[in-house]
């Protein structure tokens, strides 16, 4: 197992205060980490640290980055994208090859073919010449996955990938991610631990502090112990195992055995 990223005792924040304290986590290849936590708990700050978008106040971040092109593929939240921006799908995918520190970016026909191949794999090669305004949320998400994958990253980071996506594609996406996981490490941010716990291998709960949970089964009692104020809710028709039995006597409307169900 090769380590890709090591955060050691990292504290980080913005002008108006500290958001993350004493965070240590190691991500190695083959990892599939679910990052959960409440809004404002520091999930996005953790991602920004790993991407190098912000610098830590204290602590160290090591990146074992020895490849050409981008070492991290990143799927941002869709909300910050201007859907009316005049850019074609093919250009968005190619932007994933934007090379480090270089100002002149030109693409060979091999690059273009690779972009089309990826779109083909996602079943949307017919959209290559379309622009973002013409795409559905699920289609745009596939385009962004292609952009993240085109540089063959060692680590793929997804920030709330299920926000604008319909249920059917959500399920498909998780299956794709499991396939990608054979070749790269994955970190996925979600507020929906019920769904992601089925797919991820480990869970990191971020709420100012980071608690690393070395399996994908997590109970409400553990969450409470981590001071992670999340409710475990199961929903949708995405199959998911949830939660082992625990000794709470609350009358939550959830079951504590592996199950499949659908409700609106």
């Amino acid at each position, binding site marked *: 197992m090769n380590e890709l990223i090591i955060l050691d005792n990292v504290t980080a924040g913005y002008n108006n205060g500290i958001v993350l304290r004493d965070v240590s986590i190691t991500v190695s290849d083959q990892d599939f980490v679910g990052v959960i936590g409440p809004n404002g708990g520091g999930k996005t700050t953790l991602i920004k640290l790993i991407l190098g978008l912000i610098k830590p106040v204290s602590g160290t971040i090591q990146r074992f980055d020895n490849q050409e092109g981008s070492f991290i593929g990143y799927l941002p939240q869709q909300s910050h994208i201007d859907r009316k921006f005049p850019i074609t799908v093919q250009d968005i995918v190619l932007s994933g090859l934007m090379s480090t520190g270089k100002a002149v*970016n030109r693409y060979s026909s091999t690059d273009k073919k690779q972009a089309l191949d990826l779109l083909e794999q996602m079943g949307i090669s017919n959209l290559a010449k379309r622009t973002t305004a013409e795409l559905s949320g699920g289609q745009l998400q596939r385009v962004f996955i292609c952009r993240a994958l085109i540089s063959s990253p060692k680590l793929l980071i997804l920030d709330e990938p299920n926000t604008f996506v319909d249920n059917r594609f959500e399920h498909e996406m998780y299956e794709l991610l499991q396939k990608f996981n054979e070749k790269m490490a994955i970190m996925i941010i979600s507020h929906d631990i019920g769904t992601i716990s089925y797919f991820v291998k480990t869970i990191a709960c971020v709420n100012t502090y980071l608690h690393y949970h070395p399996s994908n089964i997590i109970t409400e009692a553990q969450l409470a112990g981590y001071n992670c104020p999340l409710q475990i809710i199961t929903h949708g028709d995405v199959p998911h195992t949830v939660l082992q039995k625990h000794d709470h006597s609350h009358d939550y409307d959830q079951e504590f055995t592996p199950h499949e169900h659908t409700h609106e």
Partner: protein
Amino acid sequence: MAGILSFDFVRHAIEAAFLASITCGFIGAYIVARRMVFISGGITHASFGGIGLGYFLGINPILGAAIFSVLSAFGIRLVSKQTDIREDSAIGILWSFGMAVGIIFIYLTPGYAPNLMSYLFGSILTVTSTDLAFMGTLTLVTVAVFLLFYRTILFISFDEEYARSHNAPVETFNYLMLTLVALVIVINIRVAGIILVISYLTIPQSTANLFVNDLKKIIIVSMIISFTGSMTGLFLSYYWNIPSGATIIFVFVLIFIVARALVYLRNLKQRKSAIAD
């Protein structure tokens, strides 16, 4: 028709319109795509302060305007980034401040009162060979920047955060492009004037955007619309003896309205045939 081409000022006007169409095609498409129309309006008006200062100090007013517009462009960015003043408020402040400074300096300048109307509404018919040389140089710079860095400009504009995560020189490019925006605005003040330069940067691009959706195509189509509109406006203003700058803009808006109507009719037809199916 051929007769009017024998006048030097007419040929200069046509050349100026051609160069303006090229620079505004590139920069206008960038501004419209990035939703920077308001900041461009602010830069345009702030540059009037530089024109006033130029007269007061006895230097070329366009040089004064160039300095003022670049500084105000950077000022708006820095102030909104580093302080809690919001960007649109910063634009409003610099917009009016520039105009005020311009008026005060021109008032304080002794003797000759310059023709302010030509700076407010443009005077494409009095463009000199020196102006054309400036415009030509800036056109070459703009073309070079876009040919070399088109992809980087496109990607940074579309998703700045993603570009940052790839270590792309985001800040360098934002300031480079802001400088280019400011300079293109100032140079085109000679042609379209402070009040109307914004329309050169937005109307042909918005018209192009009705038909094409790719930045590259918007640039090319808007150049064609710009030049055609400028020529039509120029000749109409010549025959009707009305101000040329205002006529050009009037033609731009007419083209936009006709194009929008065509798109509306096309969509209506498509919907009808879709229902008929």
